[in-house]
Structure formats: C-alpha cells, structure tokens
C-alpha cells in the first residue's frame, strides 16, 4: 500500500496500480503504473506503461507507451510513447519532443 510521508504519497517497489490517477504530491519509488494518469508528481523509478503523463518530473524508471503530455524529462529509459500531438516517439527518443 502507498505510504503518506509529510503529506506526500509515496509509491514503492512491489506496488502495482492500474487505471489510477495521481496528483502533484506523489512520488514513485519503484511501483508499476499501468494505464494511469500522472499529474504533477515526481517519478523517481518504476515502470510507466500506457496512460497519460500530464505533468511532473520523470527522473528515472521506464516509460513504455502512453502519452507524455507535459512535464520534465530528467532521466530514465524511454521505450516508446506519444507526444501531446499524438505523434509516436520510438525507443530512446525521449522528451522534450520538438
């Protein structure tokens, strides 16, 4: 289960979320997110699969499919995904997208 840390929601390794929405106070530290909505938190590690990354920082982990609408790409492994225009970006072609 996610833990609350100083009003922040921390997702940890071993956790799995499917079709869930996460706000700006969320930090992912290893959880797997399938077809989720991410709106402003910090993605430190884990797996992103499908869904929409609306805002926030992607600092580590694997981005595999889904839409990278906005946010800051700091680091991580871009496997595949789409930009805000719906255009596909292949492996290694991570944001910011021109």
């Amino acid at each position, binding site marked *: 289960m996610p833990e609350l840390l100083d009003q922040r929601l921390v997702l940890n*390794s*071993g*956790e*799995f979320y*499917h079709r869930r929405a996460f706000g700006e106070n969320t930090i992912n530290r*290893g959880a*797997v997110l*399938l*077809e989720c*909505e991410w709106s402003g938190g910090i993605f430190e590690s*884990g*797996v992103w*699969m499908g*869904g*929409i990354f609306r805002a926030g920082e992607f600092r580590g982990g*694997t981005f*595999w499919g889904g*839409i990278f*609408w906005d946010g800051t790409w700091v680091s991580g492994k871009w*496997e*595949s995904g*789409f930009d*805000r*225009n*719906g*255009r*596909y970006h*292949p*492996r*290694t*072609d991570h944001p910011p997208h021109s």
Partner: protein
Amino acid sequence: MQRLLIASPHCYADLARLWYRFVRRDLVPSFADAGYQVTVVIYRDVNAQQFREKDFQGATLCAPGPRARDFMEFYDFALVEAHDFLLILDADAFIVDGAWATSQLLRFEDPSVSAVSLVPRKNSPAIYAILCRCEHFRELTPPVFPGHYQSPESWPNSINLQPGDLAFQRLLAAGKKIITIDVQESERHVANFHGTTVVRLCRDLFADQIGDSQFEDLIQRERYYTVGAYDNALLGALYERLFDEAYAPDCSGTPLGGSLSLPRLRSILTRISKPEQRSTLRRWFESSDRAILSMAAHESIDLAIPDLIPQDWNAS
C-alpha cells in the same frame, strides 16, 4: 521479376522460430513459384542474442539501430528496403496456406489497390498480416506506419490508432483502395493469436517487481492478457511437439514460466466466476483452438489442446 519483402518484428526467438518454420516452408516457395523474388527480414526488437542463426537460415536478421530504433520504426525501415510489395506479418500470425496468400497478389491488378489486409480487426484493415503495394505507401509523408493518438487531450477518450491505421486512412482519403479479407475467409488460411508477446514482455518487465499474485490478478482481470496467456499455452504445446524444447521458459527453465505456466493459468481460470466473462473468453479460446489445430494439421500431427478450461465453465 517483381520483388516481395516479408517483414516481421519479434521479441522472442522461440516464437520467431515457429513463425519462420511456416514462412520458409509455405510462404516463400509459393510466392517464388508465382514469380516473385522473396526476401525475409526478421527484426529482433529485444533479446537479439537468443536468436540462433541456424534456426533462421535464408532470412536476414536485424536488430535495433539508428534507422529502426524499435519495432514501430522497423515497419518504415522495411518499406524503404522493399521494392514492389511488402508483406508485414505479425510474430504470432501464421499463414497456413501459401497458395491462398499468393493468390491475393492478383488483387493488385487493380492499380488503385494499395493493400490487402489478410487478417482484419473488427472488419477493418489491420497490420497483423498485410500485403502492401510499396509505391502507394511511399507516397505518404513519413513516418508511414507508427501508431498515433487522435485527440490526445481527451484521454482516456482519445483514439489510439494502431500501427498502420493512419496510413490506411490517408490512402483511402487519396482515393486508393484497401481490401480487407473477411474474418471467416481469413481464419481458414491464417492462424492468428493475440497478445502473446505483450504477456511475455510484461512478465519480463515487471512481474518480478509486483509479484506473482498481482501479475496473475492482471491476467485474470483483463481479457487481452488472459487470451495472451492462453494463446501462449497453445503455441507452447505445438512448439514442444515440433522442437522438443520448452517454450517461453522462465530463468529456471519451467515451460511457459515466461508467460504463465499451465497450472497457474488453470488456477486463474478456475477463479473466474462471472458468466459473461467466461462466455467472452470461451469465444476467444475456441478461435485460438481452431487456429492452433489448423497449424497442427498442417504439420500432420495430432495435437491435444491443453486441459485448461475448468469443468464448471461448461455449466455456465
């Protein structure tokens, strides 16, 4: 002599080995007999080192690089490499009737025909198994084949166009024709499976992280994954009969451990109680059963379908 390129992206060497067995024996000679110069290109999207060259004699093996960073870019790479016709064939699509596939080339006698979709998706063209006239597809602004999101701002109600769909739309808008083989005819000539690679990729990518329980819950809950695991069980049964080797093993060598072992899949199906879910799955399973049996018949072997369906499903 006209040239045909058969292109297929793969992630797993065992599935590719099974796929190439059918292509090499049935498809390539049939197209060659019809006067085509045929080339087969297998793209190893991941696990390239697991592909043994002796299993793919006569094919060109390629791997991610600047011109094809992943399987999606590979489709456009193949279009550039091809000359007259391109046959894109999914890793889990097996054409069991080469003569039938070859006969579909006659449809290109109509100069407005851009493609023939041999396996439809909901009666519409799909990339699963599609013959393309290269000249028409090259007229499109690249990239040609990648998937696309329409109205991404409307997520989750945006439209996720699958690979090839946007190209089909553009060609149709330009007055070209895409012929879609109807599903009954397709099933007589093509054994097609669903989600088999995705289930294995998910197993590899995150099953260890979330644990067997949550992974199996996902398989149980989502039809796409349930069917993928079931189809892997069928492909495994045929593969083991043909090659006497485990299919989709995990790191300990357990057959299907890289997908879902037979006991675990049986256990999951036992937990499914909703009649409508059972009914939907049965339809998919029966279609897959017919597909694998057509492949077995083509191999002249009697194949027993793995005993996976719980007895009490028969009562619902």
